[in-house]
Structure formats: structure tokens, C-alpha cells
């Protein structure tokens, strides 16, 4: 054992002689525990790291598959599933030319869809249509770019029929997760992009939401901002 150790360290020949080990070794049981602990830590670490990497990899790989599905959508398949067992399908393509961003928006803003792309909140207008189109996404994957969107930035939406609509960011806002008045449909055509806030938080599940409001630019701007009242009774 001692011999191996010296070999392994290589430079130990330069050391002065070390007194012979007498009762220096930790008891066998203790070493075993330590070994087990180390292995457990490695396993846990490997699993956690792998999980994190998988979440990221899945998010970006999926967009590639969805891009192919989008081609089928443009060709007329209204519900082109990116992979056979998917329960969602692309409904729009979002791009921000100034940042070189391109994202495919999926149907549904639940966890199952958001893992693979930004999701369109069911019940709100589809991107590119009249009304308020609410799109949610993860701040650490697809919608991380939201923090770089400043008022005035252009967003282009390609719809399923291949049409294009331009939007300009008008303002950004931090809301509470219960501020569902942000999803109300009245008012001019707009995109409401929602992601979690703060952007640099480690854990998911925060109560704040970062919201970007982008209004269609081909629309006459509605200067008198509508009164955003409670929507509790709409739900």
C-alpha cells in the first residue's frame, strides 16, 4: 500500500523519510464508510449534473425537431407533431432579428410543452392574430433572451399560414404569478411574453414573472391605455 502510494505521487522520493505508520490507518470500517460516502456523492453528483444537462439538451434538441415539424405545418398540417408521442405542436415561429433569436412556439403553456419550447397559453389569441397572445417560456432556456429585449425591439411572428406580423416591444414589467389580468384579450393585437423572474435565480418555482409587452406595429397605436381591471370573473 505504502509503496503504491509513493509511486502514485511520483515526487515523494524527495521527501524526507516518514516515520513508519503505526496505528495511523483509519479503522477499516471508517474507511469503508468514507468510500461509500464518496461513491454516493459521485453518484448523486453525476445524476444531478446529468439531469441538469439533460434539461438543457432536451430544450435545444427539441427545437431542431420542431423546426422540421414547422415545415410540415407551413405545408398545411395544422397539428404537426415534432415527434410521434408529442402532445403538442408548433403554432408559430418567433424571431428577434436584432438578437439573432429564433424560437418555435408550441401549443400549451404547461410544463410538458415548455420543456421543449416557448408555449402558447391556451385560451388566448394565437400569435399573429388579433387580441392578446400570451407565450410562456423558461428563463434559463428559450426565453432567456427576454432580458435583452429593450423597448423598441422588433419581434417577427410567422404564423401557421406563412404570414408574417411585426411587433415592437413597448414595455417590460415584473408581475406576480397571480397577475392573470395580463392575459386578458381586450385591446390591440399584442404578444405577452412571460418568463420567470429573477433571471439568475438558481431554483425554479419563484412567484415573480417577467413580462414583455410587444404590440403589433401594423396597428394604429392605442394611446389611451385600456383600464386593466380584474379578470377574476372571467375565469
Amino acid at each position, binding site marked *: 500500500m505504502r509503496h503504491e502510494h509513493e509511486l502514485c505521487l511520483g515526487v515523494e522520493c524527495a521527501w524526507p523519510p516518514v516515520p513508519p505508520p503505526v496505528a495511523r490507518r483509519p479503522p477499516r470500517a471508517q474507511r469503508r464508510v468514507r468510500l461509500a460516502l464518496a461513491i454516493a456523492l459521485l453518484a448523486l453528483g453525476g445524476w444531478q449534473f446529468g439531469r441538469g444537462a439533460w434539461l438543457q439538451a432536451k430544450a435545444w434538441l427539441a427545437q431542431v425537431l420542431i423546426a422540421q415539424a414547422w415545415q410540415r405545418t407551413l405545408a398545411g398540417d395544422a397539428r404537426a407533431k415534432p415527434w410521434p408521442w408529442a402532445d403538442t405542436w408548433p403554432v408559430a415561429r418567433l424571431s428577434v432579428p436584432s438578437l439573432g433569436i429564433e424560437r418555435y412556439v408550441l401549443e400549451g403553456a404547461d410544463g410538458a410543452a415548455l420543456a421543449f419550447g416557448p408555449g402558447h397559453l391556451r385560451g388566448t389569441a394565437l400569435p399573429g392574430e388579433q387580441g392578446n397572445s400570451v407565450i410562456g417560456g423558461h428563463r434559463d432556456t428559450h426565453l432567456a433572451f427576454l432580458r435583452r429585449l429593450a423597448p423598441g425591439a422588433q419581434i417577427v411572428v410567422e404564423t401557421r399560414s406563412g404570414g408574417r406580423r411585426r411587433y415592437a416591444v413597448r414595455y*417590460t414589467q415584473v408581475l406576480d404569478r397571480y397577475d392573470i389580468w395580463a392575459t386578458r384579450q381586450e385591446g390591440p393585437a399584442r404578444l405577452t411574453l412571460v418568463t420567470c423572474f429573477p433571471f439568475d435565480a*438558481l431554483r425554479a418555482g419563484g412567484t415573480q414573472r417577467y413580462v414583455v409587452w410587444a404590440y403589433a406595429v401594423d396597428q394604429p397605436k392605442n394611446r389611451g391605455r385600456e383600464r386593466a381591471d380584474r379578470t377574476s370573473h372571467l375565469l
Partner: protein
Amino acid sequence: MKYLQKKSLAGKIVLDLIVSVVLAAAMGIVAGVALAGVTLLFASQAEAAEAPLQGTLLLRPPGPGEPLSAPLLSTAVAFRVCGMVARARVVQTFRNSSADWYEGVYVLPLPDDAAVDRLRVRVGERTIEGEIQERALAQRTYDAARRYGTRAALMDQERPNIFTTRVANIGPQETIVVELEYQEAVRYVDGRFSLRFPMVIGPRYIPHGVADAPRITPAVLRPREGRAPVNPVSIRVELDAGMPLAQVSSPYHRVDVKVLDEARREITLAEGSTPANRDFVLHWVPRRESAPRLAWFTEKKGERYYALLMLMPPAAAGEQRLPREVVFVLDTSGSMAGASIRQAREALELALARLVPEDRFNVIEFNSTAQALFPQAREASAVRVERAIRWVRGLEARGGTEMAQALDLALDGRDSDERVRQVIFLTDGAIGNEEQLFRLMRERLGGSRLFTIGIGSAPNSHFMRKAAELGRGTFTYIGRVDEVGEKMAALFAKLEAPVLKGVTLRWPEQARVEAWPARIPDLYAGEPLVVSAALERLEGELRVSGVRAGRIWEAHVPLSAGEGSAGMGSLWARAKVAALMDSMREGAPPEKVRGQVIALAIAHRLMTKYTSFVAVDRTPARSADAQLKLAELPTNLPEGWEYDKVFGELPQGATDSRFALLTGLLCLLLGISMLWFRRSAV
């Protein structure tokens, strides 16, 4: 390694110690890195919160932000119960601790048969008595006072159990007290008296076509850490039961009961006050030998006598069990999420387990849509019942409350002789389209009987009770999971025991009686006959008769033997208003009904849908240049409800990937370092 080398050089310390030191150091480094990460995280959070977009202005579109901090509301309720009648005084204190002038608006529930007959406003030492006025007129009176800068209060009725209080011109650092009083008959069912005081309106689901939706949907306080519920309520009940009592209890609140004598108690909340987030209920049970069979209270007011009759038919003898067809309807909308759906599931399982193979049954669940377990009612074989129980266990609460669809499925409008058809409806009644549903029930009831089971901490009791009345069934209230067994047992007794039908009242000719309800409902086991009457003379005898299980039951009540009791007039007028409002559903012209209700309400100083209380101070308080701010006071979410299941939330937008990557990396580093030092140490 150098470190290790030095150590071994300098100290000749045993290797074990070195290993320990090194391990500690490694752990320290790891902990340090982790701490640094956390610090960094918080630092960036703080920074980000200040400036989400560096160098750009954060524009805020108008939106309802925080519920306002001022003014604050607290409520004190005092009941005086005398026999069958309760008089309640609800004192709402609006305290404005800000430097601005405020108009406070609060939407509150009251018992659905409460006869609100008095409103007063207190400002400092002065008391302003409220007046009953036709609703639109009261609104104008109030608006004028508000603009003029005088203190004023207005109270409107939105539903039989939903009211709005508005208080204008609450000055800076000022307190305004609004006192309202109401009269109510306590309930006496299954040998137990009960008094119920609702404290919060469960957020209502509003389908299309409810015109006054904004008036019955107050803002609801959002659940947030460190945010205490609003509107603390203190309650005090002076109970004079008029008979020796065996037991007094409050199922949902801890109370202190002070025994004054064998019939009298004084009850207060043990905690002093409670957040207004669930109904308060008080039960009292008379001693067995003194359980009342008959009560006849009278009051003389003007030319007329007003009276309240309570008559308990004798317990049914013998049991004849007809084959039944039972349809269970379960509300699985978002408002039922949490404690409510658990209560409902448990109650439904009990009911299903009680079916016998001769019965037929079906289960319907509804939220945004309705669906039935079987296309048609089926024989209740053990296998089917087992299947139904499994199905019910798997149901979750989410989405809207499209109750009409469920009623459409459950009520077929048919009338069958061979079977008793019973529809058992489990819901919290959190809907705003009561009238539409009542009409539907009326049209489609046929030979069915509708039994409502009100679930949760704040069910819409007006809807439940009226639905049971229209459905010729009963209303059962289950406020907590541990009551399910007891309450369901009482309901089964009612479902299975013969009903007292065709109850008729023959009043003496000379009394010239006007009694409500005009048509006496079928009486189930344990239910008394309750009638409000106005008479010109208290002479002669009232004869009551009915038929139960083929046998005639008769009782005689001498009218002169009444006990004097105040407030009978208000109760009678309230019963008549309810009957008039119901008559619209049967086709009475609304304008005519409105006229009748207003005349009656003004004569009896009664709050109704068409008449409101308004109180206006004389002297202006706010100068014209001081601005008046509006504060719509939020209400609490009823206890046990889940906010996001009712209102929804914005999509959640983050994964745990960063956390997983970081912790994974730390664990890997730690594991590797341990292996490394294990080797070097040995």
C-alpha cells in the same frame, strides 16, 4: 500536496489527523464556493430587481397592483338569540390610517334569509341613522353626499346573501363605524338548533350572461408569505334558548361558552377574533325531554299581528324502502380544489357504498364540461359501485363551473311511479348565475327530488337552499372532512324515511291571515314546518294536516297561546319578499313584483334587491380641493381553497437545470476530492 508535505514535515502529526484536516479544508472550499454562489445569486437578484433592463426605463401599464393598505376593516358581530329568533348586530369599523381621503367599498355575505332592517353610521360621537330608500334613489343620495364631501354610507343587496357597504369621505387618521342589524329565524333540524354567520364570499364562477358580475366578485387577497388575512371578526352570542340545554358547540371555531343558567349561555371566540375566511356556526341541543314540538311567537305591530310558527311532526314510524334511482352530481371545478374535493369525495363514497343492488345509480362530474360515468343509470351491482368509487377517487378539481350542463344531464324532466328518483348534488355553489340555474331546475325537475350538499368553508348557502327548495329536497352543509360521516348519516335518514306530504294549513276565517311560504314543502324526517304569518286577530285555532306513508297526521295550534317576541314583522316581510322574488321565476311580471317589494320594504324598513340603506352626515368634512380615493377592500380566500386553481396563474417559466448542474458539480467535486484524499491518506 505542498500543504500536506509541510504538515508532515513540521508536525509529525498522525496521518489520520492530516486527512481530517484536509477533508475539512476541502469541505470548507466546497461550502465556500456554494456560499459564494448563493451570495452571488442574491446579489444578482437584488440588482435585477432594481433594474431588470439595464439603462432602460421600466414602464408600468396601469393594472391592479397591491390591494390598498388603507383603509382597514374590522368587524364585530353580536347575536342575541331568544328561542327561535336571532337578532344580530354587525359592526364594521373602517379605519383610515393614511393621510388621504378614502371611499371604502366592502362586499360581504350575510345569511340568505337575514332581514336587514337597520343601518347606522358612527363618526366619533355622532350617530347617523340610515334610511331605507329605493335603490337608485339611495345611490343618488349617496353620490351627492360623496361629491359634496360629507360622510355617508350606502348598503346594497346584490344577492339574497351578498351585500355591498360603501363608506364615503373617510378622513385621514379617521375611523367610521357602520352598524347593521338583522333578524333571522334560527334553524331547528334533527333535534338541533343552529345559527350560521357567513364571513366570506367564495369567489364565484361567472358564465356568460351575468350582468352584475363585477358587483359580486370582490378582489380576493392573494396568498403571499407574511401577509395576514384581512378583516378580523369578533363574535359574541347571548343565547337564551328558552329551554334547558344539553349541549352547545361550534364546529369550525374554538369558542368559550359561559353557562349563565340551564337555558342561557354566553359564547365568545376563544381567540378573541378570527380572520373572515370561513362560516361561523353555532349549534345547541335541548335536553331530550324538553325538545320543542311547537313554537308560536307573536308580535303586534300597528293593526296587525305578526307571527312565526314552528311545528315538529312526530318521528316517522316504520320504514318502507322504495327502490330508488340515485344520480350523484359532483362539482369538480377549481373552487373545489383542496379540502373541499376531499370532503365531497368522501361523502360520495359513503353514499355509493350505501346503495343496494335493487337501486339504480349514476355519477356525473362537472367543471368546464360535464360527464357521466354511465350513459344511463345502471343497477347498483357491487362491481359497478366499486367501479364508481374508483372513478370518483381519481377525480381532480380544476377549471370552470358549468353547472347547467350537469343539471341538464342529471334532471330528465320525467316522472316515474315505480322508483323514487333522487339527485344528490355535491357542490360549493360558487357560481354567479343562480337565477339561470333555478329556472333550469324548475323546468327539468319532473318527478325527481334534488338534495344539495354544500361543501367547504364558505358555500353559497342561498343557492343551496333555494335549489333544494325548488328541487323539493333538503340542504345539508358539510364544512369539514370529519363531519362527513355524521352529516351523511342524517341525509340518508332523510332519503330513506317516508316524507310528510301535502301539508295544508287551515287558518280560522276571522284571523284574515297572510302566511308565507304559500305552498308548504314536503317535510323530510327531522324537519319542522316553519311559517311566517300576518294576522288581524289572534283567535281560534290553526289546523295543520299532512299525509305520511298513507297515514294522516293532524295538529291543532291555538292562536291565542302565542309567546311575545320582537322582530316577527321583519321576518314576515322578509319571507314575503322571498316569495315575491320567487314568483318572477314562475312568470310574474318583474315590474309589478318590483313595485310590491319596494312598498313592502319601505313599510318594514327592510333591505331588498330594490331598496338600500343610506346614511348621510349633515356637515361637509372634506374640502373640495382634497381628492377622494377609492379603496375596494379585498376579501380573504375561503379557508381550504387554492388560489391558483380558482384564478389560474401566469405560466411558470424556469427549469431546475442550473440548480441541478451546480449541485451536481459540487457533489462530483466533493466525491472526487474524498476519493483522492482517501488514497493519499492511506
